């Protein structure tokens, strides 16, 4: 099980480092680390409401994490999850407004979900197509598209679709999906909804796609060694287009969580950085769909935990911890670790040789 060790050790180490840094930060605020962390856990996993909020946040992060992780497997850096997420949410809300209220909710929800996938997918397809056709860097195109798409959506909502005195669209006519609170009263007030189940299903589907299908095989080959893939008959431009579209569609799915599962309307800025946090989730999850699920839970916990401990330490402390986790994972990837181990062994050998 060496492979599993290699996959799990870096995040575990990173967490340990983050814990130590967190302790120091809490001490610097004159608080007891034990008490604050206990408070954090109580406020996230300790009660149904906190858990619900954590799971809700994790749902969006699973979608945006996959939106970054899958393209990274193909050697593409998708920085556009933020706008793809927004486009997905907007498209879902539009569909929800276009369909009649009489439509049964499963049909309406399916239609809205398809709209979210198409909306996010279209935004993802643009950098994919530009790279395939002109060799344009997907990094630059996705960054610029974030500004363009978000500004465009804001303009449409503000000038044509908003409810007076607000920055959001009217509520959708149909298509809301059940919340956990509908099944169990303990979740009352929390936004967690069945989209989470869908997101986990999509992550498992992404795993199957990456490692069990021909398209996934070609995608990974293109990411690991593009020239060898090309020699093996892989059509790189097509892989780029399909992968970026897929990444955009996955991010778009994240919009379902908010629009269908929570507020039932599109609101300017609803993603609030979840798209960018997806980059961190993909990194910590080692670009593996299952890793992405756990990384999403971790970042959701830190984010929700910030609110839980806000009374005693500033909630920005959790932003610092998120950054520490990202840095620590970057340092703890196996390649870097091997270098450190080698240096340590050498130092030991020097020591024995000298004595």
């Amino acid at each position, binding site marked *: 099980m*060496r492979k599993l060790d290699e996959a799990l050790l870096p995040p575990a180490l990173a967490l340990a480092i983050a814990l130590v840094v967190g302790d120091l930060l809490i001490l610097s605020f004159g608080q007891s680390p034990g008490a604050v962390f206990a408070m954090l856990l109580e406020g996230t996993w300790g009660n149904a409401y906190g858990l619900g909020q954590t799971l809700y946040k994790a749902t969006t992060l699973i979608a945006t994490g996959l939106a970054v992780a899958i393209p990274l497997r193909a050697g593409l850096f998708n920085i556009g999850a933020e706008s793809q997420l927004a486009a997905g949410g907007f498209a879902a809300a539009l569909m929800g407004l276009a369909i009649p209220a009489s439509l049964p909710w499963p049909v309406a929800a399916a239609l809205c979900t398809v709209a979210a996938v198409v909306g996010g997918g279209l935004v993802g397809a643009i950098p994919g197509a530009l790279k395939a056709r002109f060799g344009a860097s997907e990094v630059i195109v996705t960054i610029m598209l974030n500004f363009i798409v978000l500004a465009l959506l804001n303009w449409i909502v503000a000038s044509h679709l908003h409810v007076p005195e607000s920055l959001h669209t009217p509520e959708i006519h149909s298509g809301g999906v059940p919340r956990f609170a509908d099944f169990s009263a303990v979740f009352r007030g929390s936004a967690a909804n069945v989209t989470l189940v869908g997101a986990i299903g999509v992550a498992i589907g992404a795993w199957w796609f990456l490692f*069990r*299908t*021909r*398209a996934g*095989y*070609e995608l*990974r*080959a293109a990411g*690991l*060694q593009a*020239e*060898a*893939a*090309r*020699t*093996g*008959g*892989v*059509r790189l431009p097509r892989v780029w287009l399909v992968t970026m579209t897929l990444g955009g569609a996955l991010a778009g799915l994240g919009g379902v969580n908010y629009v269908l599962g929570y507020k039932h309307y599109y609101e300017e800025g609803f993603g609030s950085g979840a798209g960018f946090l997806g980059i961190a989730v993909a990194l910590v999850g080692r670009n593996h769909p299952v890793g992405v699920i756990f990384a999403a839970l971790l970042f959701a916990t830190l984010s929700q935990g910030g609110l839980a401990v806000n009374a005693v330490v500033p909630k920005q402390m959790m932003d610092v911890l998120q950054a520490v986790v990202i840095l620590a994972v970057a340092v703890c990837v196996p390649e870097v670790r091997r270098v450190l181990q*080698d240096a340590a*062994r*050498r130092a030991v*050998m*020097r020591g024995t*040789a000298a004595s």
Partner: protein
Amino acid sequence: MTAAPAAMPAIRLRGIAKSFGPVRAIRDASLEVATGEIHALMGENGAGKSTLMRVLAGMYTPDGGTAEVEGTEVTGWQTADAIAAGVGMVHQHFMLVPTLTVAENLVLGQELMKGVTLDMAAAERAVRDLSERTGLRVDPTRKVSELNVGEAQRVEILKVLYRGARILVLDEPTAVLSPPEVQELWEVLRTLRANGGTVVLITHKLDEVVAISDTITVMRAGETVGRMATQGTTPADIARAMVGRDVSLAQREAGVRDSGGPAAALLEVRDLAVAGARRARAVDGISFTVSAGEIFGIAGVEGNGQTELIEALAGLAPLAGGSIRLGGRDVSTLDVRGRIDAGLSHIPEDRHRRGLVLDFSIAENLILGLQHRFSGAAQLDAPKIATNATSQVKTFDIRPPDSALPARALSGGNQQKVVVAREMGGERPVRVLLAAQPTRGVDVGAIEFIHARLRAARDAGSAVVLVSADLNEVLALSSRVAVMYGGKFVCVVPGSEATAALLGPYMTGAARGAA
């Protein structure tokens, strides 16, 4: 250069062991090299030659054993220590920055400064000086990405010498060179030796060892199995020590068939032109036909358009003109996959860049290019992939025989066997096989095996295009031989008439003829 006392060897490695995870690369390897000699370190692929030398160069820390350089205990030192002590290694795979010039690459890490800016003029002068003294001619202002392999290697050697190396380790240096370039390299090494330098030459080419070395150490399966003076040793003796049994050395086969029979033309190339990076036309109007049951050998000094020709035939480079017919069908407009489906196999010249996805497992690499035949509508056929891997690993004797290992973990020869197995083995119908440098950096045993497979493909009715910088290989296998120079065929002769003496002048451009 101060010569060490005669009694003190330049290098003394004793009982070195090194494992990578579960793989024991070397177990009990020893090497003693006298100052001022050219020492050949021989052995099959995976015998542990490169690993042993990397221990010497400070790249790996040994698990056991001791290393001494010029009488000083250096076990477990680092690359920086090795460089400071005058030990320099030239790797089989070049470690140069392609976007920098030759001079910039040489001074990298010890840049000459003029105030706060780089003094590139001084660097270029220093490189020219060194170039003159050693006979390693290369223009210091050229970018490394524009050099051919032979020139890049000269830069590698210069880089090591520039850092003041007195002990030079060369890992398979001739694998990429043409015969005249090899002769030049020998001159350079002899000059170094005359100046008191010590050279360790990792190689598996027997004739080279006999030509250049003073002493030979042979490794097999991670152990040192023999040490002999070159004088009085025959190639057959060395081969036996390397493989552990008698080997039939590559000789021209009595039965090499000249073409001209009624066999079907499987590959027809007409007026093929390919744009080049440095020349307007890297391939400049080439026409030839290869029939079933024929090996068409293309000899020539590297950088004369062979790479571009093969890439154009494989569908990797766009045509600037001309046409390619495969089995009578025009494939000029088909992409790589279309040509694979039409029956084209391709052993690329650079297995690390083109031939393998190094982080894929052996099993995954064995289906690269054939992924459509190993999958249903969407899903890969895992059992079929596993069965294929098991049988290919067995048939082609790929070691270690664990198809879940990443290709990166294999030795060069075994990596090449994976490529050859994929392109020629299994149920794959091979109509036309492009074999570019198929035995580059591969040991005697594997060369024998790969040559046998090429002959078998020919006998099974495939048309084989063989490109090799190793003239002996071309002569030993080809039914017809063409010499490529400046993007054109300057000479095409039947295999039975081809000799090194006849082709040599064409290879260097001294003789030209109509193809």
